C-alpha cells in the first residue's frame, strides 16, 4: 500500500495533492483540541482576540490523551469522534486550519469549508491509542490546563499514520468504502 509522507505546516499544494483513501505518515507538529477547547477557541475568534497558537497551515488532532507513565512522552492517544467538533471546525478552517485528525463522519458544512479553503480531514485508527502513541515523540501543554485531558497540547510527531477521509475535492472515503462493500 503506497504511503505519502507529509509534514506540518501544510501548504495548499500539499493539501490539494491528497485524495480520499490515501495513506499518509505525518511528521512535525500537531495541536490537540477536543470539545471544550474548540468552544474556547471559537469564542476568542468571535471576540476578535488572538488564539493561544497560530493555526495557519496547522493540523488539529482530536484527542484527549491518557497521562504519560514515567518514561513515556505521552499516554495512549487515539482519536476521538469528530462530529462533536463540527459546529466549530468551519470557522477554524476559514482562519487557516489546514487539517484535522479524528474518526467518524463530518457534517456537510465542514466538508464545504474544506473544499472552499483547501483543508483535509484525516482519520486515525480509533481504539489504537497505544500504537499511535509510539509515533508521538513529545507533548507539552499550550493552553487550558484546567481542562485536564481536554487541554490544548503541542505534539511533536514522527510518521504518525492516518488515512485521508475528506479531500479538498469533496470526496468522502466513508461513502466510497460502504458503496464498494455493501451487500443489498
Amino acid at each position, binding site marked *: *500500500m503506497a504511503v505519502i509522507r507529509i509534514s506540518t505546516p501544510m501548504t495548499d499544494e500539499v493539501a490539494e495533492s491528497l485524495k480520499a*483513501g490515501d495513506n499518509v505518515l505525518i511528521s512535525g507538529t500537531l495541536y490537540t483540541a477536543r470539545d*471544550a477547547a474548540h468552544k474556547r477557541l471559537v469564542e476568542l475568534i468571535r471576540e476578535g482576540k488572538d488564539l493561544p497558537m497560530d493555526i495557519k497551515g496547522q493540523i488539529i488532532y482530536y*484527542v*484527549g*490523551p*491518557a*497521562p*504519560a*507513565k514515567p518514561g*513515556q512522552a505521552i*499516554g*495512549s*492517544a*487515539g482519536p*476521538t*469522534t469528530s*462530529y462533536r467538533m463540527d459546529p466549530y471546525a468551519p470557522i477554524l478552517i476559514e482562519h487557516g486550519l489546514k487539517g484535522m485528525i479524528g*474518526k*467518524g*463522519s463530518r457534517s456537510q458544512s465542514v466538508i464545504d469549508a474544506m473544499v472552499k479553503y483547501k483543508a483535509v480531514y484525516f*482519520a486515525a*485508527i*480509533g*481504539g*489504537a*491509542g*497505544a*500504537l*499511535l*502513541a*509510539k509515533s508521538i515523540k513529545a507533548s507539552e501543554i499550550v493552553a487550558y490546563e484546567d*481542562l*485536564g*485531558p*481536554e487541554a490544548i497540547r503541542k505534539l511533536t510527531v514522527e510518521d504518525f*499514520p492516518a*488515512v485521508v477521509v475528506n479531500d479538498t475535492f469533496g470526496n468522502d*472515503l*466513508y461513502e*466510497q*468504502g*460502504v*458503496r*464498494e*462493500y*455493501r*451487500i443489498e
Partner: protein
Amino acid sequence: MGECSVRKVDVSEVMQAIKKLAMNTTANVPKGAIAALEGAYSREESPVGKEVIKQILENHRIAREDNVPACQDTGVAMVFLEIGQNVVFTGGDLYEAINEGVRQGYVEGYLRKSIVTDPLFERVNTRDNTPAVIYTDIVPGSSVKIMFAAKGGGAENMSGLAMLAPAAGVEGVKRFVIEQVKKAGPNPCPPIVVGVGIGGTFDRVALLAKRAVLRDVGTVNPHPEYARLEKELLEEINKLGIGPQGFGGRTTALAVNIEWAPCHIASLPVACNLNCHAGSHDSIVL
C-alpha cells in the same frame, strides 16, 4: 437464618478490588474479542480493512505487554456488584469505598479522567474519574462478585432506544438495531460489539443492552431463538459494508449479544448499546 450464616466483608476489600480492576482492565482487551478480531482478519476481503484489523491487533498486543490502556478513553467506571444476601458490609460506606477504588486506580494507573461534575452548566472535570456508575443485584449466597467495565464515550454516544409496538415483532427489532448501527457508521470505532436489550421497561431495556454489550464476545444467548437472532443480526450488520473503522469491508461487528426480559402486554422495548473493539471488562469474586 442463624447469625453464623452472616458473612462480614470490610468495604476496604471492595476498594482494593476495584482499584486493581481499574488498573488492569483497560490494558487487557478480553480474549474473546481478540479471537474474534483474529478470525475477522483472516476473513476480511477489503485490503484496507485487513490492514486496520492488523494494526488493531498490534495495538492490543502493545497495550497488554506495556500495561498501557488499549484506548486513551478509559471511560466511565462502571461497577456491577452481585451481593450475596448473607453479606454484611462493614468498615464504612460501600459506595464511597467503590469511588475511592476508582479514584486510586485511575490516578495510580495513569488512566484518563473523563468525568465532568454536571452535564450541562459547569462541566468541570472531577480529575479522578469519579463518580462511578454503580449497579447492585442481591443474589443468594455469601460472596460478592465485582464486575468492572471502562465504558468509552464514543461508542456510548451512538446508542439508542425505541418503544416499539408488539406488532413490530422480530422484524421491527431487527430494523431498529440495523438502522442504529448504520446511523453510527464509522463513529463507534468499528469493528464493534452490539449489545441489544429487548423487553422490560423503558429504564430496564437500556440496562439489558448494557449487560449485553459487556457479555464476553463468543458467548451465545442460552435461549435458542435469541441465539439465532444474534447470529442473523450479526450477518445482516456485516452486509452493511461499513467495515473496520468505516473504511469499507465485511467486518463491521464482531458480535451481537442480546439480553431480554419479560415485558408489558402493550410494549416491545428495544435498546441498542455499542462498544468498540477495545472495550474491556473484568471481574473479581470476594
